[in-house]
């Protein structure tokens, strides 16, 4: 609280939020869209599976080291690491969603001569959303963790950098305060942004929970 009162809490929080969120939004959009496209072709989806497993298995810290070599010190390293660690998550969820689209519903749509665009918007995407939302929430949590970790090693601004400073000063209170800040940011993004989005995009599910 004192950090915020003194006005030195906000700038690192904003900076870290920007890095985590820009990386996350990019990864969520691109990963989901690529997963949707890859999922349209069974062969491509199967080919991508081992690639995904490898990408998901590489420890974030390894990416940070590589990014440091490629991009040097600075925000780009953090954003890159966020993208590269969260994109496979959303991509894998989208492919899994595409794999489980109901063949019978597709037949029904085909029997009415539904076009490709209609099938994408009315069949694939609504079905995919129920796979994507959980993946987005996991990816969002990952984005904060990775952003802070990358900052700790690669920048001198942001929550991660402030944590590094607290470590040097052996200041437990300060370190705890920054951890709290990260948690609060994560919670507020999930409940102020993702939950309302879910409600808007999946109205039929709201009804399900309300009536049962």
């Amino acid at each position, binding site marked *: 609280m004192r950090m915020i009162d003194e006005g030195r809490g906000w700038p690192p929080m904003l900076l870290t939020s920007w890095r985590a969120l820009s990386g996350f939004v990019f990864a969520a959009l691109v990963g989901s869209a690529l997963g949707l496209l890859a999922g349209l072709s069974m062969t491509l989806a199967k080919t991508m599976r081992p690639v995904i497993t490898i990408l998901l298995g590489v420890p974030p810290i390894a990416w940070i080291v590589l990014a440091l070599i490629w991009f040097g010190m600075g925000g780009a390293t953090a954003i890159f690491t966020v993208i590269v660690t969260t994109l496979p998550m959303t991509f894998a969820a989208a492919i899994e969603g595409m794999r489980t689209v109901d063949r*019978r*519903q597709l*037949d*029904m*749509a*085909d*029997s*009415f*001569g*539904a*076009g490709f665009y*209609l099938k994408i918007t*009315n*069949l694939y995407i*609504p079905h995919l959303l129920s796979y994507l939302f959980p993946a987005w929430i996991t990816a969002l949590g990952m984005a904060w963790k990775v952003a802070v970790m990358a900052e700790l090693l690669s920048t001198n601004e942001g929550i991660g950098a402030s944590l590094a400073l607290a470590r040097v000063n052996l200041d437990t209170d300060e370190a705890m305060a920054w951890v709290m800040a990260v948690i609060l940011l994560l919670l507020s993004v999930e409940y102020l942004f993702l939950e309302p989005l879910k409600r808007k995009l*999946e109205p*039929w599910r709201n*009804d*399900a929970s309300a*009536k049962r």
Partner: protein
Amino acid sequence: MLSWNKISHHFGYTQVLEDLTHSISAGSCSAIVGPSGCGKSTLLSIAGGLLQPGSGTIENSFERTAMVFQEDRTLPWLNALDNIAFGLKAQGVAKKTRREQGAKIAQTLKLTADDLQKYPHQLSGGMRQRVALGRALAIEPNLLLLDEPFSALDIGLKQELQSYVLEKMSQTNLAVVFITHDLLEAIRMCDSILVLCAGGKLVYQCEIPETPSSRSERFIYHQVASLLEQPAVRAAFDLSNAPSREILSA
């Protein structure tokens, strides 16, 4: 006119249809009956353009074809009204018009305005099947392909929806192909009956006299009995010697 011309089809090494030729003219109703796995649904999928036959040709000169399946296949994320309007949407009808037409059809199917706002999971199985039937009829088809649409419904509901389809047939010059396990249903609704045996061969074919509306229950039961007396039909359903063979071996 819909004609299957020497249609054969295989799934892997299993033959499901063998050299089948038949045609359906406007206003007629044909039932396809046969044991499970005899290729009835495959035949319908071919007619509906969902499947290319292994060999043979299919000709469909009906302007609009609609299908109703055994499961309702409603889309869970659309409310009942938008589900009914889905076929119209596929044809590119504007939102306002398709909702009006959907609501009109829904009314004849005894779906209330309240039901139309509900999502499929909030409706009963019977209601969902009404929605599915409404979705098919909303596009005002000339040919209606029914794949056991009423087999999961109770007898009261079944009869109600059967009468509804019969009514549609008499109002418009709708042709119907009806797949069913239920011989009573087949004879109640259709002008001709085709019997397929396992392997998808057409083994028996007959016409049912009188118009569906003038058929009495007695007449229908009588027709079922005489259909079941046919050796080809008994063989197709494996009725002929299954019980007696068991008795002999015992």
